[in-house]
């Protein structure tokens, strides 16, 4: 019998404790935590009060280290394809065309001063597939591939999630490819001639060429 009453007593008292807690929160609802990010000094200062935000008008800022949307800076890419090999989900597709000797200057250097040796007709990142693991960033030798802290980049059409970072248009790429083949053919011819003459292969003379106009295509990411 005493257990019966003690049960009722503990039941009532614990329910009262719980209700006191929820009522406290109810009255604390006049305070709001705000959108302080973890970088802000007063992040843990507001202990009570409402803690949710009205996304997207208010949002907790993502820290600078945040690993979200992949961005590639085509200016700095040397076309080594290491990221493509390292990606566990195969979301990066790269096609490269070797730069002919006369185009080296046109192709330019990276910001680190390294000579680029590949045109990049295709550098596609399927960010819908990307799992933001950051392995590609860690293997990139020129740091041209970065995860930006842009967390919300949803699209209505999934094909828009395929970001193109290549720096050649299709026509330009075809031209470069042809040029490379010509150069190769000339080289082979020269080599064959040299072999026929039993001489060391001579380097083919650089051909005169109109000024190249590859306009780097920043892709969608810059928008």
């Amino acid at each position, binding site marked *: 019998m005493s257990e019966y009453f003690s049960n009722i007593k503990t039941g009532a008292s614990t329910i009262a404790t719980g209700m006191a807690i*929820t*009522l406290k*929160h*109810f009255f604390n*609802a006049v305070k709001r935590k705000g959108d302080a990010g973890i970088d802000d000094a007063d992040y843990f200062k507001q202990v009570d009060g409402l*803690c*949710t935000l009205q996304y997207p008008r208010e949002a907790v800022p993502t820290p600078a280290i945040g690993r979200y949307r992949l961005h590639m800076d085509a200016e700095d890419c040397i076309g080594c394809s290491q990221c493509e090999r390292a990606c566990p989900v195969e979301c990066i597709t790269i096609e490269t065309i070797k730069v002919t000797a006369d185009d080296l200057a046109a192709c330019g250097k990276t910001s680190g001063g390294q000579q680029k040796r590949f045109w990049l007709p295709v550098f596609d990142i399927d960010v819908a597939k990307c799992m933001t693991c950051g392995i590609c960033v860690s293997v990139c030798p020129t740091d041209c591939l970065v995860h930006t802290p842009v967390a919300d980049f949803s699209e209505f059409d999934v094909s828009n999630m395929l970001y193109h970072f290549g720096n050649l248009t299709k026509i330009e790429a075809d031209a470069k490819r042809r040029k490379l083949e010509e150069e190769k053919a000339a080289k082979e011819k020269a080599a064959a001639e040299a072999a026929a003459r039993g001489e060391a292969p001579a380097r083919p003379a650089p051909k005169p060429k109109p000024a190249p106009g590859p306009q780097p295509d920043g892709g969608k990411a810059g928008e």
Partner: protein
Amino acid sequence: MSHASSLNSWSDALSGFNLGWFPLGLVIVAAIPLVFIALYALTYGVYGERKISAFMQDRLGPMEVGPWGLLQTLADILKLLQKEDIVPNAADKFLFVIGPLVMFVGSFLAFVVLPFGPAFIGADLNVGLFYAVGIVALEVVGILASGWGSNNKWALYGAVRSVAQIVSYEIPASIALLCGAMMAGTLSMQQFCVAQSGPLGLLHWYLFSNPIAWLPFIIYFISSLAETNRAPFDIPEAESELVAGFFTEYTGMKFAMFFLAEYGSMFMVSGIISIVFLGGWASPLPNIGSLALNDMTSGPAWGAFWIIMKGFFFIFVQMWLRWTLPRLRVDQLMYLCWKVLTPFAFIAFVLTAVWEIYK
């Protein structure tokens, strides 16, 4: 009592107004509380629950539609109206359709006897309390019809649980109300309020004027939670166990009907408890000497205000409980009903009787 009947003169006059053979006045009188309740249930019940729960959980709650999300419920209703009204192929169509209707009607029928102030009452039945308690049982029919008619196992579980629960909790609830009836010596809802109104304000209320009244008050409050399927007794719709209980298969407006019925009955039981124990439309303010606060805050409009405020207070407590407590298990629910509430209800009954005889 002539005093009481004069209070009712306004509604009596209105209900006597006929348009030819059609009792237009009577319809209007009956419709006033219904319109109010429908509006309340549509906007403030659902909205209030969402806001209160949000604040208790450190959230903002609905904020998008209208200022502070005030029109959120309206948007929800519009959305529900547009939804396809699905009747499952295997369902018992008649029961499936009739279920929510019965429940909706059942929960609103009791409003007929709720006095909204000295002047507003749908029908001042001399068995008003009895009627109110009895009409709640109609909800059980609706729940059982929808649960069985859905042809869904979860719905069936919910319906069977609900019937067991509501029928069981009728007993302590009715006995607790009987204590109130003994104090007032009447079953008429209007007379309850009249008996508890007076110049001393809340000191006339049974909860404060009668030393035993707190026991039936608490018992009825707990039982009313169970009767309206509110937490911690929401086992018929226990979402973590039975998906959604008896309304698992419902969509669109039929689904909304269950919700409106739930908020309707929440107000109904809150109304009953405030009428029986807290004086209904009687003002809580006393007359202090020449400062006649009580007289100033009485009258038809004030009466409606007080009873609605009391109702809101109990609805707030119901929501407060819901967002604090876990859910009981079926057998624990029955234990609480038969082994705790019912014996205490009988004790309260006897004590009240003794008090009423020897006071």
